């Protein structure tokens, strides 16, 4: 999932300071799961903004809605009436959701309420960790299902580096050394000899160097 963390209230409040009617829009996808932008958080943010403005003597009206997903036009379309009635829209989705709102409603000011951080998963309730750097050419088959791009602090392909100590990363002793994990995993599977092969230089043209990426499936185009 995409993991996002809510921005400080003061930043959100500053961005809506000229508005009187604010629509707060959550997303039922990733950000609901990482507990930062679902229905509950929408309600908390809307109440908080109303309290702030009431206290400052410039009260606002808020409307709320949590879409199934904000990264799908079909869902974003459903907001038309509420967007129309608002001076500005605060989105609690990831950066994708914010942009989908901005594209669909170009006349409205759309304010992001989240800092979109990474893609990862829940390691325990209330803790999320990064797991994939979206490199565009996955090598997990060779690395025992452990990603060296994101879990090795230096993203090296032929690790470990000289700083790996007692299974921990020299950059942060709380972080396991990805290459120690990879070695352990391949050894468990009797595949550790494969590490004798040198990984070739990674082809980063599949990643972020060529501008925004696009994925097309001809067979499902309408």
């Amino acid at each position, binding site marked *: 999932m995409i993991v996002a963390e809510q921005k400080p209230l003061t930043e959100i409040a500053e961005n809506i300071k000229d508005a009187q009617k604010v629509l707060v829009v959550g997303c039922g996808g990733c950000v609901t799961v990482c507990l930062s932008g679902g229905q509950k958080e929408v309600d*908390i943010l809307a109440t908080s903004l109303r*309290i702030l403005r009431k206290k400052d003597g410039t009260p606002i009206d808020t409307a709320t809605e949590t879409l199934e997903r904000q990264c799908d036009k079909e869902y974003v379309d459903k907001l038309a009436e509420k967007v129309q009635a608002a001076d500005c829209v605060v989105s609690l989705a990831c950066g994708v959701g914010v942009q989908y709102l901005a594209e669909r409603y170009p006349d409205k000011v759309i304010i992001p309420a989240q800092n979109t951080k990474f893609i990862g998963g829940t390691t325990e309730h209330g803790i999320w960790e990064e797991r994939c750097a979206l490199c565009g050419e996955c090598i997990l088959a060779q690395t025992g299902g452990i990603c060296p791009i994101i879990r090795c602090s230096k993203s090296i392909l032929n690790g470990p580096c000289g700083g790996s100590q007692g299974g921990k990363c020299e950059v942060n002793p709380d972080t396991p050394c990805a290459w120690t994990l990879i070695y352990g995993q391949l050894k468990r599977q009797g595949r550790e000899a494969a590490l004798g092969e040198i990984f070739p230089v990674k082809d980063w043209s599949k990643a972020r160097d060529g501008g925004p990426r696009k994925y097309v499936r001809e067979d499902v185009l309408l």
Partner: protein
Amino acid sequence: MSTFEPRIIAFCCYYCAYSAADLAGSMRLQYPASIRMIELPCSGKIEHNMLLTAFEEGADGVYVAGCMEGDCHYLKGNIRARKRVEYVKKLLDELGIGGDRLEMFNLSSAMGPRFAEIANEMTERIRALGPSPLNKAHSQTEKDGEDA
């Protein structure tokens, strides 16, 4: 400020604080009329937004009262409630309302006197803090007619 009668919302767990309030009543213990009680099936039922909404709708102070730690009928409801209260306290600081206006208490259903004590403690605290910044405008004149 001497005329200021705070409005305090107490979210009370059915198994402890709510019964303790009953007991305080049958023991004829006095506690301030400023307390409005809302019964919860468990303190863990409390949600961040309920606490914020209480302030938005005019509370000067709010507290949540749950069972003693380790004695929750739903095992961890009171622990969760405490964490939510701590979170909302920080939020109230950020909002300029003040986290001190919100508190979590633990007691058992046998603690009638403690119930009255908490009610007094909270009322004194909120009196000292004065009306919530959201209520400042009406605070001097307003008198709530509701019975305790």
